[in-house]
């Protein structure tokens, strides 16, 4: 193995997933810095003329392992970030209205996103120490589903639906009942009289009044 392979991998797999994570979270994960430090140490050892060729190649292999590890981790972090952004809407019936997709599509995609995430993790665990590239490809495929969901999330709709959710529910309903009761007391009508009589009869029937 040569350092060029590592740098190709860095540009092809690591940089894009790192950019995705930064775009989502606007932070740099500490784990990336740690792994970058490890990678540099091993690459430096590859160029250390005092080491045997076997040891130099051993170090370049280790550098690649660190790079694949951090790429897998970043894919997992992207998955977790996407889930954090999508889940509050995808899990609720009203929230699903915020997507520019049919509701059954949102349900299907979100279920697929979770299921394939678990499958990717199982694949990763079953192939520890080998098949890193396929593990990364597995995670990349899962995150493509996540991207479809995230991309169809309409932020204009989300604010509207959130307002709608706030304006519906038990509290506003009780407020409405109270306001209408107050209006009936202030402006009594035949309906009001009939309503009071109905309640009186009901309470009498139940034995609360005589």
């Amino acid at each position, binding site marked *: 193995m040569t350092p060029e392979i590592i740098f190709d991998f860095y*540009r092809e797999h690591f*940089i*894009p997933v790192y950019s995705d994570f*930064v*775009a989502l979270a606007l932070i740099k994960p500490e784990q990336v810095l740690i792994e970058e430090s490890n990678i540099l140490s091993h690459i430096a050892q590859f160029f250390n003329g005092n080491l045997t060729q076997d040891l130099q190649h051993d170090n370049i292999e280790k550098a690649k392992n660190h790079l694949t590890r951090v790429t897998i981790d970043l894919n997992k972090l992207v998955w977790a970030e996407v889930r954090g952004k999508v889940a509050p809407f995808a899990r609720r019936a009203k929230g699903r209205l915020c997507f520019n997709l049919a509701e059954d599509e949102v349900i299907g995609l979100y279920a697929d996103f979770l299921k394939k995430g678990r499958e990717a993790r199982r694949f990763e665990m079953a192939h520890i120490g080998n098949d890193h590239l396929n593990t990364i490809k597995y995670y990349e495929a899962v995150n493509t589903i996540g991207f479809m969901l995230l991309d169809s999330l309409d932020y204009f709709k989300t604010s509207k639906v959130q307002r709608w959710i706030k304006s519906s529910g038990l509290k506003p309903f009780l407020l409405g009942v109270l306001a209408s009761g107050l209006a009936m007391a202030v402006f009594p009508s035949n309906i009001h009289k009939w309503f009071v009589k109905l309640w009186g009869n009901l309470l009498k029937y139940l034995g609360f009044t005589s």
Partner: protein
Amino acid sequence: MPGRIFQKRFAKDPHSFNTTEEIDNFVKKKTGKKIKVKIVHPSIVTRRGFVFKIKKLNAGKRFNKALTG
């Protein structure tokens, strides 16, 4: 395909960057916010190979303090 989220948000192909530093600087320029280093989802990602606790250090500050102290 990785990089699509970045492309969608910043309308720039992430493949045009060569290092993480370039990405950090680009995001800083676009958002006006400096990218901070943070431990994220420690339950998902482990700090492999690191047995020591990581401490934040401001080397410049420390050096100045040592000079004046």
